[in-house]
């Protein structure tokens, strides 16, 4: 290696015979560059570390844990180990023998003593409604004492223990990893023999709500585009003083609380509301024919379109501001009609803003919750309302997680499709 304390030697290595570049102190240039860049990268990493940690702790980890519940539920095997073991050793179709009944009785007793019988019952109740109390009431009875023969003893306590559906559900639940919540989230269930079938027509709800959610989100995205495009264009082309004033009109509702805006729509649209009053006063409709514009799908569409409108206008506006008006003028001077100039020259240049706005509005709309809950009535509910129901009312978080995972998955698929068709590089958020 070169002795850097020798000035003579240092000058010779600046242009070594092999042509390898080195720095003034004799280190290879590539290495020195990598080192100094590594330091810069480390510094940059340290700078973003707080944000990264924040996102990991508050976003990635909780969402990951929540999603894990959609396919992992150890409530049954953890509290009913012996019968789970029996299920593992005996294939589907085996009738429960003495060993099975003994295992069941032992598990029920242990679980009742440990006060975890509710967890077990809740888990089975997801698959066979009405069985939760079977577990809890049997739990109370076995705490008072249970004697062999266990089969007769348990059937004596509740004849439902002989129900093959209960055994089938216990077998399903004995494995902690399960696809059953996803099945339920698409209105499917397992028949007694383990095959997958649709649930009864009157219980089917989720597939319809998924379809409705995506359809309404698409519609709302389209409406925000129709309403927002001219506004954005006006904002981008007016002189600054006027456009700033108009901008405030767009931003004011944007800064107003979501609940306030939703409730304002109730005041405006309800049957005894402002809009109906005006229509009656004008004589457009009779007093007894007041229009039902809220507490149904119409209400959801109107309120959500209004609330999401700024998310379409702002990206469109920022893109339109940068479009050079001379392109359209050039097109016109070359003989294009105003429509052709708009269609071939102006509109394509707004696509990055349109793409960003549409994506924002659509993704926000898909997950919308409070507005449909308040103004949606019976026909304006979205899938997020069912997720909320499972989170807060039925406390079936696994089901909520499965529905949320499906929603997240389908949004990601749509995003991927969008990337393939339009290209995410074309997005311009501002």
């Amino acid at each position: 290696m070169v002795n850097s304390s020798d000035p003579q030697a240092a000058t010779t290595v600046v242009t070594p015979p092999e042509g390898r570049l080195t720095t003034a102190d004799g280190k290879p240039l590539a290495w020195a560059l990598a080192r100094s860049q590594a330091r810069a990268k480390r510094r940059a990493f340290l700078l973003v570390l707080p944000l990264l940690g924040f996102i990991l702790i508050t976003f990635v980890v909780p969402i990951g844990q929540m999603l894990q519940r959609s396919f992992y539920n150890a409530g049954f095997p953890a509290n009913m180990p012996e019968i789970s073991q029996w299920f593992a050793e005996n294939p589907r179709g085996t009738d429960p023998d003495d060993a099975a009944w003994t295992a069941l009785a032992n598990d029920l007793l242990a679980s009742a003593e440990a006060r975890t019988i509710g967890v077990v019952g809740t888990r089975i109740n997801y698959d066979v409604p009405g069985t939760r109390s079977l577990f809890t009431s049997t739990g109370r009875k076995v705490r008072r004492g249970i004697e062999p023969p266990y089969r007769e003893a348990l059937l004596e306590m509740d004849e439902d223990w002989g129900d093959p559906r209960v055994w089938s559900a216990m077998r399903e639940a004995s494995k902690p990893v399960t696809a059953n919540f996803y099945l339920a989230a698409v209105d499917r269930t397992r028949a007694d023999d383990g095959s997958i079938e649709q649930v009864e027509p009157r219980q089917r709800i989720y597939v319809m709500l998924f379809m409705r959610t995506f359809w309404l989100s698409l519609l709302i995205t389209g409406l925000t585009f129709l309403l927002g495009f001219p506004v954005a264009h006006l904002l981008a082309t007016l002189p600054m003083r006027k456009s700033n004033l108009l901008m405030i009109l767009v931003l004011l509702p944007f800064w107003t609380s979501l609940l306030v805006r939703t409730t304002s729509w109730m005041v405006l649209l309800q049957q005894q509301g402002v809009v109906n009053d005006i229509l009656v006063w004008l004589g457009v409709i009779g007093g007894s024919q007041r229009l039902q514009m809220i507490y149904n799908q119409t209400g959801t569409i109107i309120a959500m379109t209004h609330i999401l409108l700024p998310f379409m206008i702002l990206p469109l506006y920022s893109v339109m501001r940068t479009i050079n008006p001379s392109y359209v003028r050039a097109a016109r001077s070359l003989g294009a009609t105003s429509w052709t100039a708009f269609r071939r020259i102006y509109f394509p240049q707004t696509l990055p803003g349109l793409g960003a706005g549409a994506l924002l509005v659509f993704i926000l709309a898909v997950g919308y919750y409070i507005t449909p809950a308040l103004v949606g009535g019976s026909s304006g509910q979205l899938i997020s309302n069912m997720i909320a129901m499972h989170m807060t009312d039925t406390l079936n978080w696994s089901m909520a997680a499965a529905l949320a995972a499906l929603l997240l998955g389908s949004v990601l698929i749509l995003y991927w499709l969008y990337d393939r068709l339009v290209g995410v590089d074309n997005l311009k958020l501002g």
Partner: protein
Amino acid sequence: MKRTLALTTAFGLVAMPAFADVNLLSWGGAYGNSHVEAYAKPFEAESGIKVNIADADNPATPIKAMVEAGNVTSDIASVEYADAVRLCDEGLLELIDESVLAPADDGTEAADDFIEGAITDCFVGTDVYSMIIAYDDSKFPDAKPATPADFFDLEKFPGKRTMRKGAKFNLELALMADGVPAAEVYDLLETPEGVDQAFAKLDEIKSSVIWWEAGAQPPQLLADGEVTMAYAFNGRIFDAAQGEGKPFNIIWDGQIYEMEGWVIPKGAPNKEEALEFVTFSTASAQQARAAEFISYGPPRRSAAALVGNIEGTEEPMGPHLPTTEENMSNALGSNLDFWVDHDAELNERFNSWLAN
């Protein structure tokens, strides 16, 4: 894993001061206020133990999260009976020995003084509220509705209705309106025919119903004239009638009552103090006091006579409470076991019914 979940849960909850003595998780609003005035303040004055109150939309949800994460920051919480049953069976609550409860002033044991079901392994009832039919008096100048059947009679009592968006309460009401006696409602609902019958009855008014989600909506809908009759929680209607002078009347016939009460989350840091708080707040005098702030009845029989005037007025609270004797003549106690068993199934069916 546990640690990270604990951390993340801590972010989601209201931060509570470390020097707290009893950390109470309540509901906020007028109901939370009754906890502050009737329980927390007098308890602090008497025992010197400070009560820190945090509010949640439904305290049962954070309890599940806290206990599962092993980071329990609340010592006591007010939850609905159904949630208490569920959380207790899942082992998420401490057991409450009923010997901590104070006897009535005349020496009656607490166990005999509380109404049936108000004391369970993990739960002590603090108040009884109910779902009732309310109507706008000014909309029916002649004949007044008086029974659940009138709620379903759109010809005699025209106008829209508002009902809670969910299966619970509505199915029971439908059966009672169809002539099923209160005592047989849940037996009938256990059968598929009973559920069909309830939905068939609901079909009769389906097109005239506005479904509410938040408890504040029904009095608002009544006040706006959007509906003429509402199926709602009695406290909300009482507040609108009493506080804002609205002409709302309550039909107590066919009321469905439920309880709320205290539970102690498993692993509560200050369990001893929490139990002291339970003893104090469930004594007859305090129960009666709470009923003066909000029209929820005390679950102790001995407390009924002690309830005074509506706070800040000269009018007695008694007639407005679900637990008052004349209001209980045709009342149905909500069957929690039934709903814990069938909640998901019937709500899915209900939502499917709504959508079609």
